[in-house]
């Protein structure tokens, strides 16, 4: 008899103690009523509102002090857009307001407008990018300045991090940016140089550029496009100056992480950005998500708890190893589970290294742990409706909100970025948060993402997002997804992007 079984056994033997202050016990309500009365004559001038019910909405943390201009530096095909998109996804997931201002997009958009209005088509071949072409130089300078002005305005309107995605390849251009940002009070400027001299990486980036349908090359053959793009790079190389200005804050990343220079970087968010970038790699790998097999509590409709698998859940655990092995072959893989029985049990037969993370435990439902949704709704109908109103920000009393889970998962994301092939046997809320990070899904949709039982989700990171495959095993399970209730009929769950790997050339997505 394992200690788990014994424990379950002893629990049932001693009349399983309902947690004293659970939402299922009348004590909590009584307590709230009486303690609210005691608050009426508090000595504080403006006492914070009293605690009642099963939870409440939590306001977003105050990030208003963060105003950062992050200006990219680097030759074309050095992964600047890759880094800026990746960074945007990470910071947005952490609830910062982030926007990428891509000068290339602005150039294409304006050229397209001009072509539509006047019919004149601007020449955006390599000639346009030559430093000897004065007219084009002037145009490109003004594009960069306009883009920076738009960025600064956006920061003033409440943004936190604006990413200026351009080559910014000369000392004089960077000086102009510095002087412009210095006019704004409380703005912080960082240059992020992506330096690359690994011919394999460059070549792969060039291929991606000319094969991915860049409108700059839409009328050219691939070979022509490749030649033109290489000429464009050469034009930049002729005047390129790596960042060494001692008065600037900068991060210089060589060959995606192999060498990093960090200069004059102060501030917590800034150092986090640096740490994140240090942990990125671009080696191909896949990340697998699976929920635990169907649990006893799933069958009973209860939330939380630490129950064991149901017979069908056990069947899933038996079948999982074959599916994973078919997919991954001989490649190395590490399995991560939470500390709860149902994930450990689900992973038990997988022939890989396993690691248990406390941070992967399911969202803590606090006083509602171990109850069914119906029971909660019956005991606290108003609170229950409140949670549906803003599920992301709703924190269960004595438990967590989705936001709390995002904060707790941040180290997991960092570790995921560093790792190779990983299979996470997790829980519904946890996998929703991780999934939203990889697909850049908005907060409001996050708590409604469908992560069904007995399904493996395979994500393969690509240049601008992730490819996704789903493998549903034909083993029945209860549906634990609760769609957002609505007066005007059920709202369809958010569209799951099949692939988010395409590049956005005009900034319209």
């Amino acid at each position: 008899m394992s200690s788990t079984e014994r424990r379950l056994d002893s629990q049932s033997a001693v009349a399983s103690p309902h947690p004293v202050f659970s939402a299922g016990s009348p004590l909590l309500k009584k307590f709230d009523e009486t303690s609210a009365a005691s608050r009426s004559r508090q000595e504080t001038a403006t006492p914070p509102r009293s605690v009642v019910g099963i939870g409440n909405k939590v306001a977003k943390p105050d990030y208003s002090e963060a105003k950062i201009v992050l200006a990219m530096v680097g030759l074309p095909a050095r992964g600047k857009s890759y880094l800026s998109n990746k960074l945007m996804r990470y910071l947005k997931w952490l609830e910062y307001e982030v926007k990428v201002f891509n000068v290339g997009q602005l150039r294409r958009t304006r050229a397209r407008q001009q072509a539509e209005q006047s019919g004149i088509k601007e020449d955006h071949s390599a000639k346009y990018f030559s430093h000897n072409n004065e007219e084009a130089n002037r145009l490109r300078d003004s594009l960069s300045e306009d883009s920076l002005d738009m960025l600064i305005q956006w920061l003033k309107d409440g943004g936190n991090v604006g990413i200026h995605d351009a080559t910014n390849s000369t000392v004089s251009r960077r000086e102009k940016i510095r002087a412009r940002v210095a006019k704004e009070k409380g703005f912080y400027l960082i240059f992020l140089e992506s330096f690359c001299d690994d011919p394999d990486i460059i070549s792969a980036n060039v291929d991606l550029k000319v094969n991915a349908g860049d409108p700059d090359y839409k009328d050219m053959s691939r070979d022509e496009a490749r030649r033109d793009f290489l000429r464009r790079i050469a034009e930049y190389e002729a005047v390129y100056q790596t960042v060494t200005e001692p008065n600037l804050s900068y991060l210089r990343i060589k060959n995606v992480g192999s060498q990093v220079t960090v200069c004059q970087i102060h501030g917590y968010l800034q150092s986090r950005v640096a740490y994140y970038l240090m942990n990125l790699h671009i080696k191909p790998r896949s990340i697998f998500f699976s929920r635990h097999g169907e649990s006893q509590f799933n069958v009973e409709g209860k939330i939380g708890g630490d129950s064991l698998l149901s017979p069908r859940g056990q069947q899933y655990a038996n079948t999982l190893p074959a599916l994973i092995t078919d997919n991954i072959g001989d490649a190395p893989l590490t399995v991560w589970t939470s500390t709860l029985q149902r994930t450990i049990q689900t992973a038990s037969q997988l022939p890989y290294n396993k690691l248990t993370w406390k941070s992967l435990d399911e969202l803590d439902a606090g006083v509602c742990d171990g109850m069914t949704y119906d029971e909660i709704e019956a005991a606290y109908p108003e609170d229950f409706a409140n949670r549906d109103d803003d599920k992301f920000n709703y924190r269960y009393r004595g438990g967590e909100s989705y936001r709390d889970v995002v904060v707790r998962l941040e180290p997991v994301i960092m570790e995921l970025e560093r790792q190779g092939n990983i299979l996470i046997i997790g829980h519904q809320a946890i996998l929703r948060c991780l999934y939203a990070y990889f697909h850049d899904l908005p907060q409001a949709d996050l708590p409604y993402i469908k992560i069904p039982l007995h399904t493996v989700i395979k994500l393969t990171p690509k240049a601008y997002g992730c490819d996704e495959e789903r493998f549903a095993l034909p083993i029945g399970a209860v549906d634990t997804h609760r769609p957002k209730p609505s007066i005007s009929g059920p709202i369809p769950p958010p569209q799951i992007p099949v692939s988010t790997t395409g590049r956005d050339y005009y900034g319209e997505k």
Partner: protein
Amino acid sequence: MAAPLYTTDSGLLFHAGKILVVTVGLPARGKTHVSRALERYLRWMGVKTQVISLGDYRRKTLGGAQQLPPDYFTLGEKTPETMRLRESVREGCEGLIWKFFETGGQVVIYDANNGTRRARKDLAEKFDKAGIHVILLESTCDNEEIVKANIRSVKISSPDYKGWDEEKAIEDYYRRIHDHEKYYEPVEETDWPFIRIFNVGDRIEINKIQGYLQSRIIFFLMNIHNKPRTIYFARSGQSLIEHSYKADSDLSPAGWEYAERLKDFVIQRRKKTLEERGIDASESRLVIWTSARRRAHHTAWPFLTHASNPPANLNPTVAASAPGSSTNSPLLGALQTSASSTSLYSPSLYPQKLQVPRVPHLMLPPSTLSPALALLPPQQQQQLLSAPQTQVITQPPTPPPPQPIKVKVIEKPQMSEINPGVWDGLSPDEARRLYPEEWERFLKDPYAFRAPRAESYHDLCVRLEPILVELEREQEDLLIIGHASVIRCLLSYLIGLPASEIPAIEVARGDLLEVRPASYGVHSQNLHFWDGPGRRGAARTRPSSAAGGATIGTGPGAAGAGGAGRKGEALGLSKLRDLELDDSGLTGEGAEGEAAVFEDAMDVPPEEGGADVDNGASGDATEDDEAGNPNNYYENYAEDTRGKRKAGMSALGLSI
């Protein structure tokens, strides 16, 4: 942001293998500061780490600088004897490194100058061959000011210059540095992974650093600074239901009163500290971190009302938006508007005499007793059902002087107290009965043990790791209003205590822990400012070895804690002489025990300064308390029984 700690078969953490960090740099460039900080951090994460200092070793084996031949520190021509001497020191030191690795150590930080490429290459190759990952950590500094400050503050107080005239010592030291400079070669070889730190973190260069532990080291190094600042820790006020994690209950009346006193005391204390440094306290912002638990962030409330001062209506916008904020977390709403507002203190906030109605907790007729309530021990039931009374609290005769403050309060969800899992709300007796096996293990190892669905202290440390890096990063004065378990973990990091000691650190409600980081550690002292209901759940005695009383820290000039502590205490005690020590509601029984302790404490003459008040009454008091006051024992058990575990257990009525 630490991954969960896991030990591989070899006994090493993170699959990181063994690492030798070789410091490089001229003297007085802060190598030791960085080495010690890193050692503290890695040890706290559970990595077996050791700084091996060439200077310390030399001093130990050969004695101070005076005992050395005159050419010992000149790098040029040396007599054969000096060469031999140096060689023997180097070899002895390397022997220590090997020994540490061989006995299960994972990271060695070799604190020496290692100023030539040649010496580094020899060293790195030797260890690399044995499969040890070598990282060069260079600390360079071209800012003369920083170097001078370093020499003055640290070097001339080193044992090398014991009994020397200050100016002569500085001169001698400069000569030593100068000789080194001639031969110094900065780390420019890229064949080894390196980290170069310029002017204490102004710029950091990193080469070929790979691996989890290594990148953590860099992130940490990016966040440390050595600017003067103070970190304060205080527990949250007493809550209505102390022993339930899930109930997340609000402050009790005593808790609210505590919050007011805490605010007054911190403001006064900080003003004094800052004035000593020539800083105007009203100009310097205090950052407050609380957990997301109500008892913690409501304890910060008086700071906000003080800063925004709604009754005087000096700042109408703030006053209007703070109380009626539309969000359901009014505090947060208020934070955003009043974050850094400054205004004058208004005496109207502090009535001389205050009527606080005793909370009519849970006045249920016995017939409605829920099964859950029936599970509680009888005394507890009694408290839950006790009748309302009125309690009179006499305010201190003089309100604190007007004092504008700048304050920003930040709620950190990672700072919740240790989660008791299924033991939440249970009495120790029930826990023992329902989970006998787990209970045994809990008693054996309160640091590593995780009750079902609960967190261990180890889990808590991992959870707090991002907070710790932010703590290092913060430059403004910081007040952490938290829970005993959280304060214990953070404090053990700052002070450098081994992990196993964490659960035993005493953190009493009513004490303000003041920690000032210094070169080689921290100065910390324990300022006692409040005695009242709910001080229990923590220490009966004044904290001793770990958290306070005496100054902790390895640096010189650590101030005696006692004097300052007494001042704080006097405030609390004078008030308490008149106070009717009746508790507010759920924690009623403890009150008499409290009174006894206070009497004892008052009998100690203030002159006794730093000595801890280790009163004999504590044992009895604990007994009273444990029986009547259901505190969160999962959080406080080890503390309750620290150093006298047997007594503590018998106090709980257990026979183990």
